[in-house]
Every structure is written in C-alpha cells, then in structure tokens.
C-alpha cells in the first residue's frame, strides 16, 4: 500500500512543520511580552530572543518555507491562512501594536539574529516608533535599525484588518480570552515594577467575558491551547474561567461572579515578586527556593493591599489563601489561624485542577477524572462541597473529551448531564472503529440503552495518552450533582443539525 504509506509520511511531515511554525510563533509572542515587561537587555529578553532564533532555524530545518510568513490580523496570528490560536491567545498587545502600525504580515528570513529581533521590537512595540512603518519611513527605519531579515507588509488602503469579532462567536471568545490575558500580563508587569495595578481593568475584562458567557465551551476549549507560559498568565485565565463557570452554575449573581472572577484572575499576582530564577526553574526547588516560592500568596495579598485603587477583600483573601486547605492548613504560615472563605476555597479547587490537567516542562497532564481522584485523596486538602460542585459542573469527561466506548466505538463528549459519569456523546465510529451506518442516530447518553445495548466509557484518549476507565463502583445519586443539569446544552447537542464533527 505505497499510497497509504506516502500519505502517512506526508501527514507526519505536515504536522512537524505545523508544530515548528507554532513553536516559532509562540516564541515570538513570548519575546514580545518579555520586551514589554523587562529591561531591553535583560536575561529574560535575551533568552526569549534566543528562542525566536532557534525556533526559526528549526522551522527552516524541517522544511517550513522561508521567509516564514506570519499574517497579523486584529485578533489572530495566521500562517498560510490558517489561524494559530495558541500563540494568538496572549498576543493581544502585540497584535494591537501591529494594527496601529498598519502591519498585515511579517516575513522572517533564516538569517535573523537575536540582536536584530530586539531592534525589530523597538520598531514594533515602542509607542514613540508608532509611525516608523508609515510608507515614507519604512525603508529608512528598517535600514537604520539594521533589520534586514524581517520584511514588513503593510495593510492595503481600505483594509481594516480582521474585524470578525462582532459576528463570529469563536472570534468573540478569542477576544475575551485575549483581554483577560492582557489584563493579567499588564498587572503582573506592573507588580514587578512596583507600579500601581489596574484592578478595574481586570474586573472589566471579567465583566465583558460574563456578558458573552453563553459559550463557555469556546473559552475553555481555547484555554487548552494556550502554550505561552508567561507569568502563569494562561494558568490564571483558565482558573478564572473555571471559577466563573462553577459559580455561575450555582446561581451566584453578577456582582459575586465579577468578584470571584477577578479574584481568580489575580490569585497568583504575588508570583511577580518571586525571583524569576525560582519561578521559571525547570527542575525541583531547593529549600531556600521553596521558601521564596511559598511566600507568593503573602506577597500577593500585600501587593493588592498596597493599591490606591479599590481592591475587593475577596481578591486579597484568594491571593493569600489559595494554597490553604479548608481548615487553613498549607502555606503561607499565617500569624493567626485562617479559615479560607468560600471564594478562596473555590479558587483553590480550580487552581489545583488546572495545574494537574495542564502540561508543564517537568510534568505530563492528568485527565480530569484522574485529577479528581488525586484531589479527593485527602479530605483536608479541598472543600468537599466545592469539589463536588466543580465535578458536577465540569463532569468526569468534559465537553470535547475523546472516548473509546466498551464496544470499541470512538466518541466525543458533547454535553454534560446530571450525572458526571454519564455525558452525552456523539459517535465518531461504529464498534471497533467500523464506519458508522448512514442514518443511524449518533448521539446518546452514556449508560442509557442505545441501539439495544448499554455502553460505558472504557478509555479516555488524549493526544499523548490512553487512560483506561474502570467500571465505577457506586451508583451516584443524581442529587449530589444537581447543578450539572444543562438542559439547553443537551438539547443543542442532541439536535441532529447542531453538532459539527
């Protein structure tokens, strides 16, 4: 079967090239973010510029055509017309600066070096250079700054860039995520430099997100693609989205949601005061480093209390208590015993769940059901009420999870029900990967009788792992996760015309 083999090799090469482009775009976004926060010649900027150069060379080495072209729209970075959502998620400020300069595309030649890239950022990021790419200045500016290996294409007259945000739900979700991330990046950068935070901007970003929160799955699906680990911004945004989703499902009002969303967004603000050698160390921390890291909750509370702008005590409490168990165990070591509030206990559940289910340089990701098992080991670690509410909202198999059923059929989760172990799924194949018969219904609830048989989940399939799911011991009472009922979502998911494969 030489044709099949050829196609497989070609697919694999295409994937390698795509990953290389993604890695380069991520490195470019990280370097731009570092330039906005750190000194121009700091180690952090130097290291991230080195990553830009090396990822560009890797891309060229695996066959990505050079110059490597990145199209920069208002919302997204694209390559050959394909959106690169991962790097776009934290690129709000970079994209805005490109838009201010009328830039449509950046073309990176293989000879780019770190110093040249740093000079490019002078032109791209500094407010004083906003007119550097005006048609009458562009050539001279690029020459004077010694930028020879990056070409800049300007938007044509009358081309406003990509302005789909008002119409397209996915683009709207992307914009919300970017705003949350940008607000957090800005505040972390300010905290690092002892500047006043912009707490109101963070709350406003949460409010705007809530206004469009009828598509939480869009936001959470985007969140899983955020690979730019900058001040743990992606982590904090995901924690905020999870907290908002759980609190919203429990019926909390808008003010409470904004308070808990802002608190979750800013819970790690104290990390900006932890030495970056410790914060970004890729390996185990020694005792002194650990002591420095363990102070970040106290630093966070202090930073928030230092603000002249009004700061909600919910945020101060969550910053201080997000590493404490429900009875106050954990760290930091407070001068008086602390009993964390409900908001802080929710932020803790979301924080740890996110950390367990995300990939870090030093660890692989657990699936959600494995994360719940880890989190439920010691009842002193997490508030059981909030953990139950969390599981009831997100489910054992969150929307979008790929499953293998007991008969060998593949399926994808489309919605949650009142039972976290019984989601609504859409079949992708028949039993043992056979093709699905045409016209056969393909949506059903796990555990219900479907086509004469009752199917359970046998395996979770992620990109890197297959996790066997045993038969679950106890028949869960529906009441304990009553908040999980999402009638509209189920109705949408089970309607034959709505789901897209």
């Amino acid at each position, binding site marked *: 079967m030489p044709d099949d083999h050829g196609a497989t090799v070609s697919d694999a090469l295409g994937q390698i090239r795509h990953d290389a482009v993604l890695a380069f775009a991520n490195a470019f976004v990280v370097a731009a973010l570092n330039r906005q926060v750190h000194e121009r010649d700091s180690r952090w900027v130097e290291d991230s510029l080195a990553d830009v150069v090396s990822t560009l060379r890797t891309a060229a080495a695996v066959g990505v055509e050079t110059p490597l072209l990145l199209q920069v729209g208002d919302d997204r970075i694209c390559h050959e017309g394909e959106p690169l959502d991962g790097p776009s998620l934290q690129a709000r400020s970079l994209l805005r600066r490109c838009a201010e300069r009328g830039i449509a595309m950046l073309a990176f030649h293989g000879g780019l070096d*770190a110093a040249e890239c740093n000079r490019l950022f002078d032109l791209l990021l500094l407010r004083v250079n906003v007119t550097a790419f005006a048609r009458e200045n562009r050539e001279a*500016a690029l020459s004077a700054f010694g930028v020879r290996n990056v070409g800049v294409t300007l938007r044509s007259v009358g081309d406003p860039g990509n302005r789909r945000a008002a119409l397209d739900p996915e683009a709207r979700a992307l914009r919300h995520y970017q705003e949350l991330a940008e607000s957090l990046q800005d505040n972390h950068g300010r905290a690092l430099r002892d500047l006043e935070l912009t707490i109101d901007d963070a709350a406003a970003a949460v409010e705007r997100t809530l206004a469009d929160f009828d598509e939480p799955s869009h936001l959470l699906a985007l969140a899983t693609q955020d690979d730019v680990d900058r001040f743990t911004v992606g982590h904090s945004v995901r924690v905020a989205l999870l907290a908002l989703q759980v609190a919203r499902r429990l019926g909390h009002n808008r003010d409470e949601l904004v308070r808990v969303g802002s608190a979750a967004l800013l819970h790690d603000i104290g990390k900006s005061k932890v030495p970056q050698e410790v914060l970004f160390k890729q390996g185990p921390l020694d005792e002194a480093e650990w002591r420095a890291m363990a102070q970040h909750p106290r630093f966070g509370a202090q930073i928030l209390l230092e603000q002249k702008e009004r700061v909600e005590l919910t945020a101060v409490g969550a910053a201080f208590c997000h590493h404490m168990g429900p009875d106050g165990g954990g760290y930091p070591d407070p*001068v008086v015993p*602390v*009993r964390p509030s409900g908001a802080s*206990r929710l932020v803790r559940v979301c924080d740890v769940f996110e950390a367990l289910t995300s990939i870090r340089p030093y660890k692989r990701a*657990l699936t959600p059901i494995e994360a719940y098992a880890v989190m439920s080991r010691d009842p002193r670690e997490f508030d059981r009420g*909030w953990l139950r509410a969390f599981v009831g909202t997100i489910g*054992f198999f969150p929307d979008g999870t790929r499953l293998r059923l007991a008969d060998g059929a593949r399926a994808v989760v489309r919605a949650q029900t009142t039972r976290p172990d019984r989601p609504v799924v859409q079949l992708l194949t028949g039993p043992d990967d056979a093709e699905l018969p045409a016209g056969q219904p393909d949506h059903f609830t796990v555990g219900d009788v479907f086509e004469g048989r009752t199917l359970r989940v046998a395996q979770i399939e992620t990109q890197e792992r297959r996790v066997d799911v*045993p038969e679950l011991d106890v028949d869960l009472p529906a009441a304990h996760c009553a908040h999980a009922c999402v009638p509209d979502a189920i109705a949408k998911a089970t309607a034959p015309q709505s789901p897209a494969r």
Partner: protein
Amino acid sequence: MSLRARLANQQEGDRFPETVAQWRLQLRTEVKNSSALPTSVFHARDAQLEAMLAAATEAMLARLQVPAPDVRTTPAGGVEQRLEAVPAAELRALPARLAGDGPTPRLDDRAAVEAFAVLTDAALGPDPVAATTAIALLRDRLGATTAADVEVTAAQLRQCLLAGMAADPAVAEAVAAIARRVAGAIASAPTTCPTTTVPR
C-alpha cells in the same frame, strides 16, 4: 532618577526618527571620509539632487551590511516529565469519595473571618504600605477609633479571629496577644489614613 523611571527607560529602545537621522549622518560622513577629495566638492548646489543621491547611497549601503553570525542556541538538557500515578482502583472509588449531601457552597461563607485573619497578617507584616492599609481596614471594620480603649478593640478583634474555630486555649491565648498588638497599632495609627476609601 527613581527606580521606576530607570526601569522604564531601560525597557525603552531606540526612537526611530533620531536613529534614522543619526544613521543618515553616519552614512554621509562615511561617503565623504572614504574620498580623498575635499568636503566642499560634495556640497551639491541642488538640494533635491543631494537628497536623491543620499537615498540611493543609503539603499546600497544597507544591502552591503552583513548580518552578524549568531552563536546562541537554546540551552540543551531537557527535564524528564513525570506523571502522577493514579491506579484504576482509585478511579473506581471516585464516586464514593465524592458522594455526600452537603449544603450548596457559598462564595461569601467565612468571608469576614478570612478578611480579619488576612488583614491581621498584613497589619503585622514587614510591608509598611500594606500594613497601613490593613490597619485602616481593620479599624473601619471594627468600628474602632484611635481614642477607643485598646483592650476593647483587642477583644473585638480576638472574637472575630476565633469565630467558628474549635476551642484551643493555647491558640486562643496566642490570638489574644496578637489582637492586642494589632489593637495597639490601630490606636497609634494616624487618623488621616489614605486607604479609608477602600470598601469593606
């Protein structure tokens, strides 16, 4: 220059109008220096012609610039990624572990107790700005004034900090001592604290 201003400046790079002007000047100087002819020979009568010549020279010289070789590479040596082991038995037992019928959790549960404790921690902490804010907030929440008896304020604070906690004489005594210290700080704090606008 303040630290903030210095950091802000260090973050900045070059400004393009000045850089372009300086670059042009260097190029023209280089053109003139590389000739044995007197400088006056290069003074064109026609300003437009001089500008065109300069632009053409700029373009040629820009193309002659050779990129510096780059020797940087990403540091080698990856870190092994670990994976937390979760046995099947633990997954099987998960529903039982999560089962239970507690009340629906509330975001504001214990909010006041947490606030008193966190503010007390900050009030006694090393950060003077955070401590001042925390003292002002505690004074505001306790309804204390600087003239109030320190012991009354301390008793109020002690009661707030111990609310909902199991009775432990040793802990209660330690908390009482801390409450007296904070009450003393409240009593001696200036009345014109800048943070009195912070909401409860």
